């Protein structure tokens, strides 16, 4: 399929790809430049940029609650990743390697829940959380990140874990929980990494649920805090861009280091979900 001949139309194609790639990155460069200006107008003047001036950043951290929001986001993301991996790999192991009545029926129910948009369940979940007094807690922010997707993802990978290996361990008298922790978990590590990356991005970027479930400003996550900046500081664009930069930089750094896992983890979500 590869064709190395460069014709007029393929040069045009290349141009189009390059132009699109530039539009993909330019807004983020603009964001960084703006975050180092004191600009209250939209015009970006080069002489306004001062890379040694971090006052916008210190302002959003200290005066706009970004410090707390960053802390909340990190706690929520770490817990979501951890619990999603534990819960999903346990369930995937149960579904794939154990036989029990109703197994496929329950599994199909899991698959069906993937089709239901989160906004459909959000209102009753909000009411449940409110009645239980769980709004404005880390629990409510974390628990909704865990869904059937992780189970589906890991189960398809779990099929590749040989049954003979588990049988042999059992014959050797290895206790059940040790089989799971010491044999199964190391074998499914690649898919766990994909799931972690996927969970990280979904929970870091999650907006609607944190927006409705947190009313206490101490519990805001970064996305909520960022969305409020525009009402707080209407035209202080330097400040708003500093906020955007803070919320962008963490997934970006992770992306730079774990590029392959990122693309796989996120692309898988589409293929399986």
């Amino acid at each position: 399929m590869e064709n190395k001949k460069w014709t007029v139309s393929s040069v045009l194609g290349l141009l189009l790809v390059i132009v699109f790639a530039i539009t993909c990155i330019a807004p983020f460069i603009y964001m960084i430049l703006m975050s180092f200006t004191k600009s209250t107008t939209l015009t970006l003047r080069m002489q306004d940029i001062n890379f040694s001036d971090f006052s916008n950043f210190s302002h959003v951290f200290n005066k706009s609650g970004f410090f707390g929001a960053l802390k909340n986001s990190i706690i929520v993301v770490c817990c979501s990743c951890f619990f999603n991996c534990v819960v999903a790999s346990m369930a995937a192991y149960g579904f794939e390697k154990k036989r029990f009545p109703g197994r496929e029926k329950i599994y199909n129910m899991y698959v069906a829940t993937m089709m239901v948009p989160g906004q459909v369940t959000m209102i009753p979940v909000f009411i449940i959380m409110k009645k239980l007094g769980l709004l404005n807690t880390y629990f409510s922010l974390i628990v909704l990140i865990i869904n059937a997707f992780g189970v589906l993802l890991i189960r398809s990978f779990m099929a590749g874990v040989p049954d003979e290996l588990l049988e042999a361990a059992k014959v050797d008298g290895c206790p059940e929980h040790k089989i799971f922790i010491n044999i199964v978990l190391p074998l499914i590590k690649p898919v766990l990494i994909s799931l972690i990356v996927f969970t990280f991005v979904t929970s870091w970027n999650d907006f609607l649920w944190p927006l409705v479930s947190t009313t206490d400003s101490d519990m805001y996550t970064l996305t909520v805090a960022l969305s409020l900046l525009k009402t707080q500081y209407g035209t202080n664009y330097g400040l708003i861009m500093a906020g955007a930069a803070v919320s962008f930089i963490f997934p970006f750094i992770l992306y730079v280091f774990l590029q392959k896992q990122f693309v796989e983890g996120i692309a898988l979500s589409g293929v399986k979900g």
Partner: protein
Amino acid sequence: MKQKRLEATQGYIYILPSLILILSFSIIPIFMSGVFSFTEYNVMNSPKFVGLENYEKVLRDEYVRAALVNTLKYVLITVPIQTALSLTFAAFLAVKMQNKSGEFLRSVMFIPVIASAVTSGTIWRTILGTDGGILNSIIGIFGFDPVNWLGDSKTSLISICIVAIWKNVGYFLVIFYAGIMDIPKSLYEAARVDGANTYQQFFRITLPMLKPITSLVVTLGIIWSFQVFDLSYQMTGGGPGYSSVTIVMAIYNAAFKQYKMGYACAMAMLLLVIVLIINAVKQRVFGEKED
């Protein structure tokens, strides 16, 4: 026999944590949503049964109708364009640039995918702004008059669509690219021996072989687009007027601004029906089994 029972018990124990979560935060809420949609409920007082009243009101509500029309427009604009662009780019990169620079271009185009919709919306809101926004300055160089992108009801929705396309292309590009890489090389070799040019190879081999991937990209694109909220919340807040209100925004406002939970649930059920219909149509058209 004893062995079997032990294995079943172990199975249930392993799935128990996730089963509890799925039941309490997915399955039971779906039914609750259905029940609430027939009630008047403001969380403070207990729900009052009102029959089909919410559904009748939803269908007559001008705000909801605007939201439905906008969301439909949004779907019809973003899905075809993002699908076509990502497929074209993927095919181009696969044919011409299976090398380091192609890899670099793909990873650059993926950057908008990892940014949150709120971050993207924040940046684009500034880029599209009037009074010296950078996009208006750029089109000014080419002699165009400045456009009030987000403040004019004629362009607000379109602007959101453009940002959505910008954000999604990299994602679908990765999926298409992986799909193209999975097509057996021998097919292309045989075609080349028969004298087929690049375009013929694309239309006769790549496109037909990608049919399952395309169906996935289109369905996912449609379903996600029906759920658009973050971008329009951040960029326009639904305005000016009702010009960029979406279905989910209407649900959000009814439930969490006006505390009309029953009414909001009726809208949510409408969204659910739309999504289920899309899935059913996908299965009809592409005739594939549930995985």
